[in-house]
């Protein structure tokens, strides 16, 4: 469960990115975060995995109050949250398999367990046959699926995706949506910041609209509501 109570965020340069947000997201939900560029969507996401600290207010993730979380406990929080970006952030010199395994190696998972989990996850994202490929040898959609595999290989409770289809053509974007839906159906909470009107309007889920750092709309089966 994710809960925000009267959360504010002012960056050190004085920009007020989030100006009093109250929100509750239950386990297993699929939520779109929509809003114009500069609305504060990415800041909202970054606060959830403690990449940014809220200036004031309370954020509770799986019972942990992030404001009170010690720095040394941040890694544990991050292991419960998968994060996916628009630009994939794959390591170019590692193969598909190695990129996904990397996430488990650096948290000291055993080799046998790593192998089993990586293979399972690669088959979930349908890339088992390209395990030995380098990121350069893949299409954009495939690269995004590797990055999703890396985010979920540790079975996190929550998957945060910040404009995951932003760099992809519509056809490919639909493939990614199918995958996210599948992940959501297994019980993972999925939160997706997006600009993609077609996806939001077709693939109907809860929509939280943010503008000027405030929640302007929160609908159970909402629409995009902006003219891109």
């Amino acid at each position, binding site marked *: 469960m994710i809960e925000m109570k009267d959360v504010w965020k002012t960056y050190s340069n004085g920009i007020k990115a989030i100006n009093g947000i109250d929100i509750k997201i239950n386990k297993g939900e699929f939520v779109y975060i929509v809003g114009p560029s500069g609305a504060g969507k990415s800041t909202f996401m970054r606060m959830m995995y403690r990449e940014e600290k809220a200036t004031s207010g309370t954020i509770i993730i799986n019972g942990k109050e992030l404001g009170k979380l010690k720095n040394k406990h941040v890694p544990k929080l*991050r292991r419960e949250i998968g994060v996916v970006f628009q630009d994939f*952030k794959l390591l170019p010199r590692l193969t598909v398999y190695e990129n996904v395994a990397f996430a488990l190696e650096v948290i000291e998972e055993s080799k046998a367990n790593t192998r089993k989990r990586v293979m399972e996850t690669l088959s979930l994202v349908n890339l088992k046959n390209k395990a030995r490929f380098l990121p350069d040898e893949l299409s954009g959609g495939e690269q995004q699926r590797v990055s999703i595999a890396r985010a979920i290989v540790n079975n996190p409770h929550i998957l945060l995706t910040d404009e995951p289809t932003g760099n992809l053509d519509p056809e490919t974007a639909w493939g990614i949506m199918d995958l996210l839906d599948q992940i959501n159906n297994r019980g993972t909470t999925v939160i997706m910041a997006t600009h993609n009107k077609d996806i939001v309007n077709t693939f109907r889920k809860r929509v939280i609209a943010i503008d000027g750092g405030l929640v302007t709309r929160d609908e159970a089966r909402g629409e995009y509501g902006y003219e891109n």
Partner: protein
Amino acid sequence: MMKQEVNTGMKIKTFGRHGKEGFKNLGRNGWMTFASISAVTVTLLLVGVCLALLLNLNAFGDQLESDVEISAFIDLTAKQDQQDELKSRIENISEVESVTYQSKEEGLDNLIENLGDDGEVFESLKDENPLSDAFLVKTKDPQDVTAVAEEIKQLENVQDVEFAEDTVNRLFKVLEIARNVGLALVVGLLFTAMFLISNTIKLTIVARSHEIEIMKLVGATNWFIRWPFLVEGILIGIFGSIIPIGILIYGYYYLIDLIANRFPTLFIDLLPVTPFVYQLSGLLIVLGVIIGVWGSLTSMRKFLKV
């Protein structure tokens, strides 16, 4: 869910990984690594030579100092009771350890003996001994020699006071200058080496920033991220200590050998090879590791941000 416990202890496998990554880091900026190792080498070489010199000089100084005596020559006119009073006055000076009487005949014998071959010239003087009877004074602390000598000079019935003033003072001066010059050089070099190491590691951190970002994102602990860079620094320190240790061990053996074979009459007692050189070698490795760790911590504090 998989086991989610964040392990702070280090498993053997993890230790191996950090070691491997540390070695890989060394290769990443070959020339910078080479420069860093060279800087550590020069630094430790100087530290080693300075320490070997200073410790030997100190030991030599101690030995000399313990030999330093003040000769207080007694006025020829002084009667026995005046001599006794003078002796007890000297003994009453708080820094004085012992006072012994030496007749002028003994004084001349000692002088002739000390001068060895050159002393023969003085044999002829035996009949008309130019020396006076004297009290030989030892101080508790060799450093007080000058002050005590001054004090004795003021006493009645003292004709003159002599001690190896120049030798003592010069030795202290030399020791002090050597110590200061050595220290300044070593400190300067230490900072240079540290600076080079931290810059080398900064380059590695920059080269791996992408990887570090992902590690943080997926929940690697801060120490898991730091260790390879720490290993890199430690390795630079250890590699940098190899040549200085080699030179030190070889050089010291050579020197001892040289003195023993070529200049057996030279009155210099160097500290014995064992355990001295090995202790010094251990110290150099430890110093190398400290410089390395210091360099990598400096770099991590500025650039790793974990």
